C-alpha cells in the first residue's frame, strides 16, 4: 500500500505547545525507513502533542520534523498528508454520520490518481469485517471496528509513514492483538510506523525500538526488547 521506497521520520529538538503553555521540550527521535518505533509515556506526557506537531495540527515553536529529505515543519496539515505522513488520531475521529465506505473514500480525498477504487478493494479484503459493515454508519460500529476503519482510512491516502495515537484505548486485549497483526502486515508493505501508546506491552511488542516521553521530554530510549524489562519505565509513569 505504500508508494515508492520506504520513508523515515526524523524529529530534531522539537519544542511545541498550546498558546503560552510549552508541552514539548527539545524532543528528538528517529524512525528509520520501514521501521516500527514506539513512543510511550503516561498521560499528560505530551505524546499526542508530538504527533500533532508532526502532522501540522499543533504549532511547532522550534525544532524540525522531516520525512526523508522533506521538511514537514511549517507545512499545512494537508501538505503533510501529501508528503505521505498520515495520522490515525486518538479516539479514532471517524465521520460518525458517514458510512464506512464514505469514511474510507474520505481518506483518499487528496488523491488525484485513478487507483482509489483498487485500493479500496485491496484494503477491504485485508479487513473482511469492514466489507460486512460497508454501508453501516461509522458511528454505530464497535470500538474495534472503528479502529479498523480509522487505520483503513489512513491507508487510503497511501501513507509512507503512519502515526498511530493510542490505538489500544478502550479495546479488549484480543482486539488489540489482531490490530497489532494488521500493523505488522502494513509494515511489511514498506510503511514506517510510529506507534504512540500508554499501554507498554502493546507498544513494545510490535516495535523494534522505543522512546519514553516524560512530561515533555524523552527520558529513555532503546531496543524494545531491552526496555520491556527496564524498571526505569515504571518510574517514568509513576514517579516512583
Amino acid at each position, binding site marked *: 500500500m505504500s508508494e515508492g521506497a520506504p520513508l523515515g521520520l526524523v524529529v530534531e529538538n522539537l519544542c511545541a505547545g498550546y*498558546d503560552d503553555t510549552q508541552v514539548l521540550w527539545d524532543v528528538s527521535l528517529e524512525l528509520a525507513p520501514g521501521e516500527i518505533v514506539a513512543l510511550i509515556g503516561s*498521560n*499528560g506526557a505530551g505524546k499526542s502533542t508530538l504527533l500533532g506537531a508532526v502532522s501540522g495540527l499543533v504549532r511547532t515553536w522550534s525544532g524540525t520534523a522531516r520525512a526523508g529529505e522533506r521538511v514537514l515543519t511549517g507545512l499545512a496539515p494537508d501538505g503533510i498528508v501529501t508528503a505521505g505522513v498520515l495520522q490515525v488520531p486518538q479516539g479514532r475521529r471517524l465521520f460518525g454520520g458517514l458510512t464506512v465506505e464514505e469514511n474510507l473514500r474520505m481518506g483518499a480525498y487528496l488523491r488525484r490518481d485513478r487507483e482509489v477504487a483498487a485500493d479500496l478493494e485491496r484494503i477491504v479484503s485485508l479487513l473482511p469485517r469492514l466489507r460486512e459493515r460497508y454501508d453501516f454508519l461509522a458511528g454505530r460500529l464497535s470500538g474495534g471496528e472503528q479502529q479498523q476503519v480509522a487505520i483503513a482510512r489512513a491507508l487510503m491516502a497511501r501513507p509512507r509513514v503512519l502515526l498511530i495515537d493510542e490505538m489500544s484505548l478502550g479495546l479488549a486485549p484480543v482486539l488489540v492483538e489482531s490490530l497489532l497483526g494488521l500493523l505488522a502486515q502494513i509494515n511489511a508493505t514498506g510503511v514506517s510506523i510510529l506507534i504512540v501508546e*500508554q499501554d507498554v*506491552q502493546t507498544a513494545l511488542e510490535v516495535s523494534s525500538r522505543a522512546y519514553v516521553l516524560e512530561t515533555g521530554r524523552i527520558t529513555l530510549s532503546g531496543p524494545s526488547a531491552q526496555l*520491556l524489562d527496564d524498571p526505569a519505565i515504571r518510574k517514568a509513569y*509513576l514517579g516512583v
Partner: protein
Amino acid sequence: MTRSALKIERVGMRFGGLWALREVSFTVEPGTIVGLIGPNGSGKTTLMNVISGVFKPTEGSVSYAGRQIAHVPTYAICRLGIARTFQIVKPFAALTVRENVAVGAMFGRDGAKRSTGASFARAEELLETVGLARVATRPASELTIPDRKRLEVAKALALDPELLLLDEVMAGLNATEVDEALDLLRAVHARGITLIVVEHLMKAIVSISQTVVVLAEGKKIAQGLPAEVLGSPAVIEAYLGARWAKRQKQVAEVERERESALDAHPPETST
C-alpha cells in the same frame, strides 16, 4: 469554620451506553489533602463535575456535612462551602483581574452579606495571597498561563470555601512554577481548607497529598498513602497496562526462583 466530610457513596455516571464512573466510594476527611489520579479516561474530571453539580449522578450519592448534594445545581454548590477550579481555565476576559475575583466574593457563600465595595476589598486581599496583586487592574485576558491558574484559585477562594476541588491546576507549568503552585496550595491548606487535587504530575501528587485515590476506567482501584498506592500492582497495571504488569510479575517470579535456587545451592567458590 465548621469542618465537614465529603462522602462519595457508590457513585455511578452514565453517558449513553458508557459508564464513566461506576461504584466509586470514598470519604474525604475535613482538613486533609486528597490526591485524585488515574490514567486517561479514568473519570477524574467526571467525578469533579459530579461533586460540583455539573452532572447529576446516575447512581449513588454525594453528601457533604451530612447533606445530600448530588442534586444541587451548580450555582448553589458554592453556598454549601464547596468551590472548584477548572482544568481549562475560565477567566472573565473582559473584566480586570480584581473584578474577576470580586465576582466570586459577591456571589459566593458569604456574598449576600457583602457590598460591591467590600467584595473588591476582599478581592484585593486574595490577590495578595495568590501573588496577583501586581496585575490587579489588568484585563484577565492579558495574563500568562501561570497567572491564569493563580486567578482560578483566587476566584475559588473568593467563595469562602471549606472544600476546594483543584482540577489539573499544574498542567502546563514548568518545574519552578509547579513548586510555586504547591507552595500556594500548602498555604491554602494551612487556612484549614480541605483540598482535592486532580493531577497528572505524579511528583506533585506525591509531594502534597496525604491520601491518594486512584481511578481507572471509572472505578476506584486504590486508596491510601501516596508511596503505597503508586507502588501497588493494581495501579501499575492501570497505568502501564495489564499485560506488561503480568509480564513484570512473571519476570520477578523467575528472578526469585533463581535466587532461592542459588541460596539453596551456592556455587562452589574457588579457594
